[in-house]
């Protein structure tokens, strides 16, 4: 069948089961949008900024487990995707980004809206293609989706010169992939699984440390089963939230810089860490040389390059977490059942004592506090089909602490890259992927203002996202560091000048606006927002002095955690 390259691209995307594309048109991309417009299988959502398109595709992938797709024109369109691609790369999110390019003959001439996007994105993609022969489009699309979604997932870029999309080709509906160098390990080595089981049984203070890999490989049920069968306390990273229900008695919540005191104590005193789909990031370990000084390590990861990258591992198992954890459960189940008493019963007692001594809490004197707001959002949504997304900053860490994530793919946040402005786009992407779900974006006034233009997208497509702005009028996380470590010199973090009226902004975009100033107003406002089934901006006017605690100071070990907000100094100069 003869058709244009653009049409072949659309048909190939349809073949991959793509239902939604987040994109933005432009000169070199018109031919593709021209064909997309006629597709009955794909809905193209017109965003208001390419960065938002990339983040939305990323969050769509996180919420659904499918490959997210974003699209932008050549030059500035493509470069605006870069932050979103980097974000997906850092969190290993399956995404295909399609960019237009100037005509093949013009590449390298500094043509209008030319940018070497395959060059620019080289360090932040799993793989990339510059189409040089239009007949290869179907094969390239097939390979891109395969690469993005298998092994350690990640973003794949397809750069499509305009003459490629406009030339006539013979369309191949079933192209053959040619990836001789790509063989991700799937099944874990059985001997290593046996060795891991043996090491677990010989331990006394084991901890499971689960990361985003558990969510990505859909291994949350297996992980939870492993925790239950072995009765091993389990902590997760920000990316791993939902790997085990956080209301489970074995859950320690999140570890690391703003993790719970008991998770960090458990890690620091552990004699065996079972790391699953986690990469010992610096926000998790703090000062690496003092991290878990007494522990041995079992490390399960699909990416062999992660094994031994930051810590020396005793039992590495390379492969898919779902498969390996299931095998480990099978291996250890009978031996656990034979035990007369749990070898780590005293360990449990110790952890319970830590939980009692240092619970996750905050002090309130009747003012509206961000932690309270987030608790109420959790209370209002815990029995619903709900997805929580976040921006980046203090609100994100409070959300990580006070939202108990009960199911995988229901807490969506920018981890590795820490991208401010991720909140609104991720709410949009999650809502498109999960139209029945109630979506709450827990956001900050700074984060929100980076992407507020895309409230237009919410209105345009009737996406009933609930944007909760915890407005403390500061770039709060930087302010907190300035307060604690930089002599309280609050350089350029005060957002008061120029602070928009968010209620008028909501109105301007045709969204519902609710401003909340007192604790008693919180729950009614949340319920009203859910009930309205409209895009909604909830502005919570909170104090600027609240910090995120516990906190491990940067460069310090987990043992050096500050447990709670220091008392404000009274009197004197």
């Amino acid at each position, binding site marked *: 069948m003869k058709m244009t390259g653009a049409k072949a691209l659309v048909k190939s995307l349809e073949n991959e089961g793509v239902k939604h594309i987040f994109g933005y048109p432009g000169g070199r991309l018109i031919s593709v949008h021209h064909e997309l417009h006629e597709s009955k299988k794909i809905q193209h959502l017109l965003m208001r900024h390419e960065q938002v398109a990339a983040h939305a595709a990323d969050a769509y992938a996180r919420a659904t487990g499918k490959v997210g797709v974003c699209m932008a024109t050549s030059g500035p369109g493509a470069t605006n995707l870069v932050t979103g691609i980097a974000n997906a790369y850092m969190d290993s999110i399956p995404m295909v980004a399609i960019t237009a390019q100037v005509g093949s003959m013009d590449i390298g001439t500094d043509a209008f809206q030319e940018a070497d996007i*395959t*060059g620019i994105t*080289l*360090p932040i993609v*799993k*793989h990339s293609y*510059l189409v*040089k022969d239009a007949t290869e489009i179907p094969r390239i699309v097939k390979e891109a989706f395969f*690469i993005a979604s298998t092994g350690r997932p990640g973003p794949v870029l397809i750069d499509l010169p305009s003459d490629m999309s406009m030339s006539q080709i013979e369309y191949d509906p079933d192209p053959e992939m040619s*990836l*001789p*160098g*790509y063989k991700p390990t799937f099944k874990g080595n059985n001997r290593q699984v046996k060795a891991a089981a043996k090491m677990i049984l010989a331990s006394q203070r084991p901890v499971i440390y689960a990361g985003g890999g558990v969510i990505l490989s859909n291994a949350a049920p297996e992980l939870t089963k492993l925790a239950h069968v072995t009765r091993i306390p389990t902590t997760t990273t920000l990316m791993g939230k939902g790997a085990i229900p956080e209301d489970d008695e074995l859950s320690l919540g999140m570890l690391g810089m703003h993790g719970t005191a008991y998770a960090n104590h458990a890690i620091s005193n552990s004699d065996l860490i079972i790391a699953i789909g986690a990469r010992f990031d610096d926000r998790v370990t703090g000062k690496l040389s003092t991290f878990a000084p007494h522990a041995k390590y079992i490390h399960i990861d699909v*990416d*062999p*390059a992660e094994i*031994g*990258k930051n810590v020396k591992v005793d039992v590495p198992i390379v492969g898919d977490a779902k498969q390996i954890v299931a095998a480990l459960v099978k291996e250890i189940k009978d031996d656990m059942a034979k035990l007369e008493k749990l070898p780590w019963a005293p360990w449990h007692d110790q952890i319970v004592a830590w939980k009692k001594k240092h619970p996750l809490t905050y002090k309130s004197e009747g003012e509206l506090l961000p932690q309270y707001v987030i608790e109420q959002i959790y209370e209002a949504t815990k029995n619903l089909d709900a997805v929580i997304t976040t921006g980046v900053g203090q609100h994100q860490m409070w959300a990580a602490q006070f939202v108990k994530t009960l199911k995988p793919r229901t807490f969506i946040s920018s981890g590795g890259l820490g991208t401010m402005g991720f909140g609104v786009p991720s709410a949009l992407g999650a809502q498109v992927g999960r139209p029945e779900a109630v979506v709450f974006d827990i956001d900050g006034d700074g984060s929100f203002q980076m992407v507020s233009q895309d409230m237009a997208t919410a209105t345009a497509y009737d996406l009933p996202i609930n944007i909760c702005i915890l407005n403390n009028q500061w770039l709060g996380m930087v302010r907190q560091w300035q307060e604690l470590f930089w002599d309280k010199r609050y350089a350029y973090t005060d957002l008061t000048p120029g602070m928009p009226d968010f209620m008028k902004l909501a109105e301007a975009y045709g969204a519902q606006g609710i401003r909340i100033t007192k604790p008693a107003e919180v729950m009614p406002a949340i319920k009203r927002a859910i009930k309205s089934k409209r895009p909604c901006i909830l502005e919570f006017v909170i104090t600027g002095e609240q910090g995120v605690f516990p906190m491990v100071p940067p460069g310090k070990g987990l043992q050096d955690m500050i447990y709670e907000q220091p008392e404000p100094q009274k009197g004197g100069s």
Partner: protein
Amino acid sequence: MRHTVSALVENKPGVLVRIAGLFARRGFNIESLAVGPTEKPSISRMTIVVDVADRPLEQVSKQLNKLINVLKVSDLKASEAVERELSLFKVSAKPETRAEVVEIVDIFRAKIVDASRDELIIEATGTEDKIAAIENMLAPYGIREMSRTGKIALARGGRKTED
């Protein structure tokens, strides 16, 4: 500590920049790099000499292996591989010193590949040490220009890099 890494890669545009970029990004210093076709036209071999003083070689090979276009990576130990470099030296060789220069060429089993009134171009192949030695010997006569290929290598005996 220096290592010779041999990588078989798909012969496609952009592969070299992916590999060079990876080394730079992950903080590894490339000392030399040679690329050429293999017995299969679709596959190229890259021979990379890398200084791994600060970071373990294992990380480099693992990261290289993750590149989609990389088929096989191996660490070639000098004792188990044949390693060669090719170099060209343009050396001053006035009539009064020409005989001495020619003698050095003979000792190192090098070749004179071009001659003009005052200069000779000398082609030498061998291990890195041998190239360094001839360079050292030629230096007093005046090396006007030189060009080196970077090291290429193959595993000795029946073993193939792919194995």
